[in-house]
């Protein structure tokens, strides 16, 4: 597995401790190559989190009530975007979901976009990373549903509207809920991976000029897929958290 420069750097700095930590876990977690325990995806994810932390610290230092600067406008735009959408879909009391949804959106967006910079590779082209995001989102909305409705009512809402069809609707609903994890994962993974494949294919055909169109397409697809992921998690949240009028 060819290493990016960031992966080689992290492996040189942290390879020893990471190996020691992984060796203590069950054999499924042992690294495939002891010289490179940190994979490309994990290294770029760590870089993305570091960049986001720097951006947040920088914006926090520039916050001001009287004279808002450009970074404050951007942060407020993102905040309003997420709160407006979750207010529209979930209804009132949706502010407590804003931190998770906004973090999800900006994390996936930056992970998708960083693949455009030469020398980096989007972590979302490995299927494990979108799976991780989908599993976290799945656990998040289910836990909030259980907390809001109580475990019994939460399970009861899988049974469907009429009680005498519940015996067949219940397994179908359970399977379709579990299929949400798969659909979120595959949608994000296949969009970004296929975009990379198509760009690579066009690079081999016409090296100059035309691949720029596919890079622009990749930018658009990154934004769209991050937005769709967040929108779908918001819709699933509204399904379990919504109050009956």
């Amino acid at each position: 597995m060819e290493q990016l420069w960031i992966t080689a750097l992290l492996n040189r700095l942290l390879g020893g401790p990471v190996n020691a930590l992984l060796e203590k876990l069950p054999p499924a977690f042992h690294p495939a190559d002891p010289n490179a325990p940190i994979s490309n995806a994990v290294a770029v994810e760590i870089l993305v989190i570091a960049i986001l932390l720097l951006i947040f610290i920088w914006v926090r230092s520039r916050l001001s009530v009287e004279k808002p600067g450009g970074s404050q406008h951007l942060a407020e735009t993102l905040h309003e975007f997420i709160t407006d959408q979750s207010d529209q879909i979930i209804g009132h009391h949706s502010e407590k979901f804003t931190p998770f949804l906004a973090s999800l959106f900006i994390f996936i967006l930056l992970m998708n976009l960083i693949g455009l910079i030469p020398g980096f590779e989007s972590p979302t082209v490995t299927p494990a990373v979108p799976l991780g995001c989908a599993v976290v989102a799945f656990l998040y909305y289910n836990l909030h549903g259980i907390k809001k409705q109580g475990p019994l009512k939460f399970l009861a809402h899988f049974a469907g509207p009429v009680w005498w069809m519940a015996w067949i609707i219940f397994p179908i609903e359970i399977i379709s809920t579990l299929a949400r994890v798969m659909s979120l994962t595959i949608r994000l993974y296949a969009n970004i991976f296929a975009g990379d494949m198509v760009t690579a294919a066009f690079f081999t055909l016409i090296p100059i000029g035309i691949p720029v169109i596919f890079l622009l397409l990749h930018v658009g697809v990154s934004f769209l897929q991050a937005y769709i992921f967040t929108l779908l998690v918001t819709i699933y949240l509204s399904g379990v958290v919504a109050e009956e009028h």
Partner: protein
Amino acid sequence: MSKTTAFIFVAMAVLFLAMPAFAQTPAGEAGNTAYYWALPLGAGAAIGIAAGLCGLGQGKATASAVEALARNPGARPGIFIFLLLGLALIESLALYALVIAFSIIGKLK
């Protein structure tokens, strides 16, 4: 023989046509690679059909979204959100077929 009975017998006959599949010997390492010529055809057909039908579905969704916008230009934000959601969900079906095509091609190697 009533119509229901005839239908049941026809259904059983069609299902029993699948019997030759059960006669397959367990494949070994040096075994049944004789069907490998069909794998690229299957992968190409899968993604071709999926992309074509996805195009039809997204065309219909876009057409009705544009028509709704023409009738009511003030509803643009709501229509836009539903359009994006619908297009992404239809697209994801074609992407499932793409993933299957990739795994078929991966089986070839």
